[in-house]
């Protein structure tokens, strides 16, 4: 840098600081309040977990651009084709689903609130028919009014898994579709009113094959974000998603980055949940993970879009530096890291043999292996994490006073299962995930204390479920009795967390996430939960499911996941929304 440019830079910096100082105001509101002022509140004092359960640095100041970066990328920005939690959080800035999760800190964020619809769904008595009324005045970014037909089209197109393979399949599985319907592209003339009706421009009615009392969670899926049929370009729609939210895409380059600017046709009067504070968003994809952490700390980037926490290299730095630690939060995710205990493999077809593994496991060593209490999580005693509605605390397999395992009880269980000297099995893990390898080694050492010989087998993460541990025949042939696993909720109730990982009817030839739970009693409880209308009673049934899975001992829970995240410099309205386990991207502003 030349002397002259140094002087210019110094003067510019001083001027900017002066301008920023002049802009400091005192207005602050709650995140759910309306926009009442343009002045920024003074920056709040940093404190550890200041963004958990409360709003950090509340402000209504508009303007500025928020810089996001991510070491990975969106699976797609097309609402029909995305299954990433961060994507579901972020896409609310450009798309409006029928209902969504309340932008509020903590558990309040799990509450489903109307968005494009005027109210939550009206259910028929058997919970098979759900009706939503759309708000009037909502427009696409080109000024065209949004109609119920646009929502119907969006849901129907999302069913085409040949074109949109990534998204969830709940609508495919539950809507009462005619047999001859293939997709909106291949069979556009087939009547689909048996599945979705639009009696008028503001009303949409969903018909299900069987009743589901929690359908509002389906209506909150990105698939209900309206798509104008005339603008639908199939796979290419991701290159320019037509916005209904306060922001629209200026550019969208998969694998490189995305830029969003204000949508001139978004009307605050039609929107109860968005404040639309920044002027836009810049997202950089495929950033180096360690570089991203450093830039987040320095302030060059403000949000790690994935929100999965800092890398090991930055972890000790953040925890060891009080100033940095004060800029961090340690939210609990709706995710559990666990090991499937596969009953297809002898002698694990015996309940007592499975119990022996539960008692012998060293829970502290497992927690350490998963990166400790801050970046790994809390020691888990059941499958369903605490952030899921209806979670009940219980521990069927106490691991001793120090959580290092109960060797005596493990040996008792081994004797009961007819293997007093232990047995030998293989354990699968994802070879390119060091934490799973460490966890496997921790289990290996702990189980060896009671004579259970564990041989670790690493498999590539990309094929782990498709070709290896997710394939029942592979597990049988290779004596895989334990397999590292992990699951995050689609939404924070029992169905959103458990339905894909404990229902034996989801098990297929390959690609299974449920590798071990095969119990008709569990399946029956799941069916009961589906049709239980009262939310509290329903949550109670899901807790029963959780308990039954643990009684069966098909799952060895390791940790309920947590992440250490850093709040970007200059951000306002920062809080973790439990619905996503991430900062609520809808609420963020910038000073």
């Amino acid at each position, binding site marked *: *840098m030349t002397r002259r440019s140094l002087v210019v830079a110094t003067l510019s910096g001083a001027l900017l600081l002066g301008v920023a100082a002049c802009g400091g105001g005192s207005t602050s509101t709650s995140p759910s309040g309306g926009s009442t002022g343009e002045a920024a509140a003074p920056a709040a004092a940093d404190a550890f977990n200041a963004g958990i359960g409360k709003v950090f640095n509340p402000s209504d100041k508009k303007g500025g651009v928020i810089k996001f*970066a991510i070491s990975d990328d969106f*699976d*797609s920005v097309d609402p029909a084709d995305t*299954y990433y939690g961060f994507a579901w959080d972020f896409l609310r800035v450009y798309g409006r689903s029928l209902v969504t999760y309340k932008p509020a800190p903590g558990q309040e964020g799990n509450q489903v609130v109307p968005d494009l619809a005027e109210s939550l769904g009206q259910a028929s008595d058997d919970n098979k028919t759900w009706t939503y009324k759309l708000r009037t005045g909502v427009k696409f970014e080109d000024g065209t009014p949004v109609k119920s037909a646009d929502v119907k089209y969006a849901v129907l*197109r999302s069913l*085409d*898994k*040949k*074109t*949109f*393979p*990534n*998204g*969830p*399949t*709940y609508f*495919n*599985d539950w809507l009462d579709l005619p047999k001859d319907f293939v*997709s909106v*592209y291949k069979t556009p003339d087939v009547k689909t009113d048996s599945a979705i009706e639009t009696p008028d421009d503001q009303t949409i009615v969903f018909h299900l094959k069987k009743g589901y009392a929690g359908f509002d969670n389906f209506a909150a899926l990105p698939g209900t974000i309206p798509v104008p049929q005339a603008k*639908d*370009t*199939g*796979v*290419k*729609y991701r290159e320019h998603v037509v916005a209904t939210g306060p922001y629209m895409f200026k550019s969208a380059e*998969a*694998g*490189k980055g995305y830029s969003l600017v204000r949508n001139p046709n978004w009307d605050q009067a039609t929107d109860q949940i968005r404040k639309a504070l920044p002027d836009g968003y810049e997202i*950089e994809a*495929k*950033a*180096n993970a*360690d*570089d*991203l952490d*450093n*830039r987040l*700390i*320095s*302030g*060059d980037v403000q949000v790690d879009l994935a929100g999965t926490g800092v890398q090991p290299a930055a972890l000790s730095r953040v925890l060891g530096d009080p100033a940095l630690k004060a800029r961090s939060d340690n939210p609990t995710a709706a995710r559990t890291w666990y090991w499937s205990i596969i009953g297809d493999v002898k002698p694990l077809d015996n309940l007592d043999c499975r119990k022996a593994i539960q008692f012998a496991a060293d829970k502290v060593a497992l927690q350490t292996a998963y990166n400790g209490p801050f970046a790994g999580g809390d020691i888990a005693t059941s499958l369903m994490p605490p952030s899921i509605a209806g979670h009940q605390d219980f521990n069927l397999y106490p691991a001793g006073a120090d959580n290092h395992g109960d060797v005596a009880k493990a040996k008792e269980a081994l004797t009961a299962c007819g293997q007093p000297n232990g047995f030998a099995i293989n354990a699968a893990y994802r070879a390119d995930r060091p934490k799973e390898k460490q966890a496997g080694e921790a289990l290996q050492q702990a189980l060896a204390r009671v004579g259970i010989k564990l041989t670790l087998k690493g498999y590539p993460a*990309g*094929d782990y*479920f*498709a*070709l290896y541990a*997710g*394939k029942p025949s*592979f597990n049988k042939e290779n004596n895989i009795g334990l397999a590292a696993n992990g699951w995050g909720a689609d939404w924070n109730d029992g169905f959103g967390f458990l339905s*894909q990982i404990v229902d034996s009817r989801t098990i*297929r*030839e*390959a*690609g299974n*996430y449920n590798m071990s739970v095969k119990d008709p009693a569990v399946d029956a409880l799941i069916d009961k939960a589906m049709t239980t209308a009262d939310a509290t009673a329903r949550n109670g049934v899901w807790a029963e499911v959780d308990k039954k899975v643990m009684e069966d001992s098909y799952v060895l829970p390791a940790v309920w996941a947590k992440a250490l995240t850093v709040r970007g410099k200059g951000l306002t309205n920062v809080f973790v929304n439990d619905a996503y386990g991430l900062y609520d991207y809808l609420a963020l502003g910038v000073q």
Partner: protein
Amino acid sequence: MVTYLIRRLIGAVVMLAVVSMVTFSIFFVVPRWAGATPVDMATRYVGRTASAEMAQVAAQRLGFLDPVIVQYGRWVKAIFVGADYDYGAGVEHCSAPCFGYSFLSRLPVWPDMLDRLPVTASLAIGAAVIWLIAGVATGVLSALKRGSFFDRAAMSVALAGVSLPIFFTGLVSLVVFSYGNPFRVTAPGSTYTPFEQNPATWAYNLLLPWITLAFLYAAGYARLTRAGMLETMGEDYIRTARAKGLPERSVVVRHGLRAALTPIITIFGLDFGLLLGGAVLTESTFSLPGIGKYAIDAIIANDLPKVMGVTMLAAFFVVFASLIVDLLYAVVDPRVRLS
């Protein structure tokens, strides 16, 4: 000369064909040998709640249900005559050379690679200029001042340069020169400005990756040049040149360095060709959206068309660079004649 060129070009085409077959086999045949069915393979590319029927649909969409030889033939054919692609709302023609569509992003691979090529080329060219100048100059000076403090210091630094991996030197340089450092001399990593947009910003943003990458290569080139120069400067014809009264500069540059350059050119051609195929570590460390980053992301994600495309591109650059090098031999060293 023409015969030589034709022979080399045929060899290059055969080489590329072999590379394509081996790569295709690794990703499409080996999993089958390991017991994976086409539907199993397709399960990688569907959402986590997809049913068996949906995995079957994906297998059909990706062409996995066809025999592997048919899949390979289709891939080769698309390179020469293009292919039609169903994107849901319609069918589009992917013009030759068509390297297929990403299994994940569903974008055509060839334009994607072309889009990233300027980033990798910018990185490779800038770094190559720096390492050639710094490496060769240091090597020559070290050879001429053999045993001096400069020689020892330069070779120690060179040893460090060869030994330290890019992801270490890259991250250290970012910490020192970037990340909010008030005295930072370059923009934070992952900033790339196209040359045509602003040449000054292009160069400024690439300065740190250039220097980091060049440090690794310059070290090797310095040691190679030093060794070559030491050997050459002891040759009889150098003594003869000096005896004839030629100026020392002329002896060193025209007679010493020129002869010592042959192995440098060989290794440079291969290094440069490899870099054009993707500077994986440098691009990953600095988050530069080039071919190398594209390759590593594709491999991690099992995105087979991208892996195939980037492998072929890298192989092309290496084969092409080695051909250029062979042609340059005749220019640099009069003893070599192409026949």
